[in-house]
Structure formats: C-alpha cells, structure tokens
C-alpha cells in the first residue's frame, strides 16, 4: 500500500491506495478532473496512456504526489 496525495487548485488530500491502482482510478476516486490542465506525478509530466498505468508501473513503492495544474504560459 502506498500513500498518494491527489490534488488540484481547490483541494488536496492524501489517501492510502494499493500500488497496483491505476492513476486514472485514483484520480476519479479523488474527484480530480484529469481532462483539463496538466497532470504531474512527483513533478514529472504524464503523457498519453500514462493514466492507465499503475503506481507500481511508475516505481512508486511508498508515497507520491499526483497533482493537476492549470495550463498557463510564461510571458
């Protein structure tokens, strides 16, 4: 089991999940919309197909942060 902190601009909460849970499931259970903005897993951007991978696929064994940010431009 791993500790996953899921959040976006308006909320953030930590939950204990099985590391074989997919990122998509975790986001849906956490009520975070992954269709808008950008998703980061421990600061690394997630690409197409990554949401259906499990935390274990990303090598997460203990804890991680799965966060959504609004797309914004510098300048």
């Amino acid at each position, binding site marked *: 089991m791993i500790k996953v902190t899921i*959040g976006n*601009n308006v909320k*953030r909460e930590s939950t204990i999940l099985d590391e074989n849970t997919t990122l998509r499931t975790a986001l849906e259970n956490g009520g975070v919309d992954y269709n808008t903005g*950008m998703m980061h897993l421990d600061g690394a951007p997630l690409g197409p197909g990554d949401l259906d991978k499990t935390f274990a696929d990303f090598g997460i064994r203990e804890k991680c942060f799965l966060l959504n940010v609004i797309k914004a*431009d*510098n300048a």
Partner: protein
Amino acid sequence: MFGTITDLTLASPMARKLFPRISAQNFRDDVSFLATARALLQPRLPEGESFDVIPVPAAPNGECTRIRGDLIRLEDFDDSTRALVVYNVTPSDQSREALEGLLRSLDASFQEADGWVSLPDVETFLSQKNVSARIFLHPEKRFAEVFVLSLTVPKWHLLQSLLPRLLPWYFQDHPLSKQELDLLLSLTRTNGEAYQIAIEAFAAQYDFRSLKIREGLQGFETRMERAQIQDLYDRIQDIDRRLEDLRASFARYCRDREELALRYFALNAKIERAKDAQSGEDSELTEYFLCNKSLHFISSEESKIKFIVTGYLDYFDPDVFDSTIANAESFFFYDYNTNSGYGNPEMTKDRIERLLRAIFQEGTIKVRTCAAFLVDFGSYRCSACRNFIYPVEFSGYMPNPHLDRYACLGNNEMEILEALKDKNYIQALEYCVAANRNLNLTDTAVGTVFMEYLLNPEAGMFLELPDGTCVTPIDAILFLEEGEIPHE
C-alpha cells in the same frame, strides 16, 4: 383741507385684528377715511354688522348712461354689510347743461319711493366749499351713496367730517363726544397735523403695543424650536449613520477575528502535534520535496525557500512551432538582437531546422531545462531568479529562457500567488515545476534567447537523446544525421 395721509395707526395692517368689521378702500393712497371710520363707528356699529367705505371711479358720457352702469347696487351686499359708496364723477363734458342732465339722471336712479332720501342741506354746504355733490341715503338699508364731481383728497377729507350726516343711523342714539367732534373739525383744517394728533389719540385707546408684540412674536419660539428640532434630527441621523458604519465595521472585525482565531488555533495545534511527534515524521512540504525529483532544495530562511526545478521543455504550442519553422526569417534562423544569424557556422539553416523538428515535432530530442525560484510563503510572493549561478550538477540543463533571463512567469504567476494565499503550498510549487516546462514560442525575445543557448558553439549537454544520453546540440545534429551517438 390737507394732502394725502398714508400712514396711520388705525389704518395699519395690525389694526385689522382690532377692527375686523370696519374697512375702507384708500383713495389715491390716502388712508384717513379708514382711520376716521374706525374711530367713530367702532363703538357704534351693532353686533353682527360690518361697514365698508368704497370709492368708485365714474366717468359718464354726455348722456350719463355710464353712471347708471357703474352704480353699486344694494343687492350686491348681504344683509349684514353696510356701506358708504363715494363716486368720483369725472364727466368729459362739464358744461352746465351736461352737469344738470347728469344730476337729473341721478335723481331718477334714487327715488324716494324706493326708500332713498337726499340731503340737500349738506349738498348746499358742500357747494359753498366748492364741492359739487349729490347725496342719497337709504336709512332702512343703512346705505349711503355720494356722488362728488372730480373728487380730490381734500374733498375726501371733507366728506369724512360729515360722517354723522352721511350715516345718521349710527349717531342718533349715540351722540358725538367732544373728542370725536374735535376729530371731525380737524378734517376741515388746511394743515393735517391736528387731524393726525386727534386720530392717533383715538389709536392710543387701544392696546396696539400688546397686539404688535403678539403679532411679531407669534410663533417665534415655535419657529426657533422647529429649527432646533431639524438640527437635532439631522445630528441624530448623522450619528445613526456613524453607528451603522461602526456596527458594520464591528461585525466585519468580529468575522475577521473569528477566522484568524480559527487559523491561529489550527496552526498552533499543528505545531504542537509536530513537537509531540515521536518518530520525527516529515511534514507534507518535506514529503513533497522528497518525492518530487524535479525539485532541488537549496536553502530556507524564515518563511522563504530557494530551490531549483529541473525538467524538459515539453510544454509549447505545436501550431505556433509549425508556422514559425516555415518562416525563413523567424527567430529560429535570425537573431533580432544582432540582425544576423546566430554566428555558428556549423549550424546551417538545414541543420537548425532538422534539430528543431526533432525537438518540437518528432519528440526524439528533448531539451533539459532548469530554473531557480525563491518563494516566500509568509508574504505570498514568488519570483524566478534571473541570471542564477547554477551549481555544477546543473550544467547539463538549459536555463529556462523565460525564467532565467526575464524572470517572467506570465499567467503562472497568478496561479502561484492564488495557491500561496490559499496556503496551498504544494500546488504553488507544482506551478513552478510547470512553468519550467514552458517555452512560449509566440515570445520572440525569449525565443531568440532559446536559440542563442541552442546554437552556442560552447553549449552544454542539455539535449537528451532517445536512450537518455545527454549531448550538446552539435552532437544531437550528428546523431540525427548519422543515426548514432557520436564518439569522441
């Protein structure tokens, strides 16, 4: 007989209150008839009756028909009103024949059968005074009509002296006193002084002083008090408004205090829990720094944290890239700062285009980028560190042109500040990570800096090949051309 008198106490507006039943219109501004009538008739006028003196202009033509039209009729008055009407007859034709015709017409209008009587002796007396007049009395109705040829003010005064004869019904049972007789005689003098003294002596019998005081001060205190009330009301309203403002402020302060107290106690409890923690558990912020391999902690001081973010320049607009690469004069190939190329002969136009397509279209080459940030959680401020001197372990990264050269966070800054104000520190740091990934290709100045880094002959190994190997831009070009990693 004397001239016009315009100011007498018994004829003043104030006297109307003492003599409401006796009135007289002025003749050429002369007020004496009103004063005389009030002096003589006030003790004599029966209860319920009123009396009026009415001067009437009358200018008959040669046939005297207009006088008949101008006559004031008895029917014009109610049963309680008595009157003395004085006609100022000014015929245009003053010949003897015309005047005699006028007089005959008057006689026809005021016949004995109708109750009218004339006063020939008074008329004779007046004629001796060079006053042509005809007088008709109606004893039953107590009405008198006097026709005077070319009435003047002196004649007007003379008529007053004959009041006992013109209104005999008032004086029959109430003879004149000596004072009253002297008053009437004064009206025949050539100097008006005696009359004024006599008539004012009558006025002295009445308390005009009290009347003047009551008239002048009536309602005065009430007016003053009304003004004070208005002032008090205005001041009360003003204070009510201030009280309302204070109440609103008080409520606002109470709400603010409650919110701040909640946050104070929550933070206090959190700090106490942290103190009491036996295992030295990491805070959420510490956990985040430990988990997020993109974050590189440098230092902390009070409420500020300085850190470096690393990542890939992989957030850009592909459509903007497509249009820019198609433009041979875009910043991809032309340095707007020097108005020339980027000065690297090895980087031909074709090689530049091939490298950029590999980065921004094919994704086979990635640009490793870094940026330094200083975030103050206490004052909700975040800034990118311009021209930061990166430690040697970051030599394999290109400083993000937006952040390192211009410290420009763009729209990211707003998101970071909002997150800081919401005490959402993790989210604020996450936006720093996101900002480091962004290259806004619409910004020509920043794009030129990017190309300066990329085409610098001494550029670092910040380009990552598909197998994870980091190479310089020229080695990346060689990889693309030869399909393999160049060897030294």
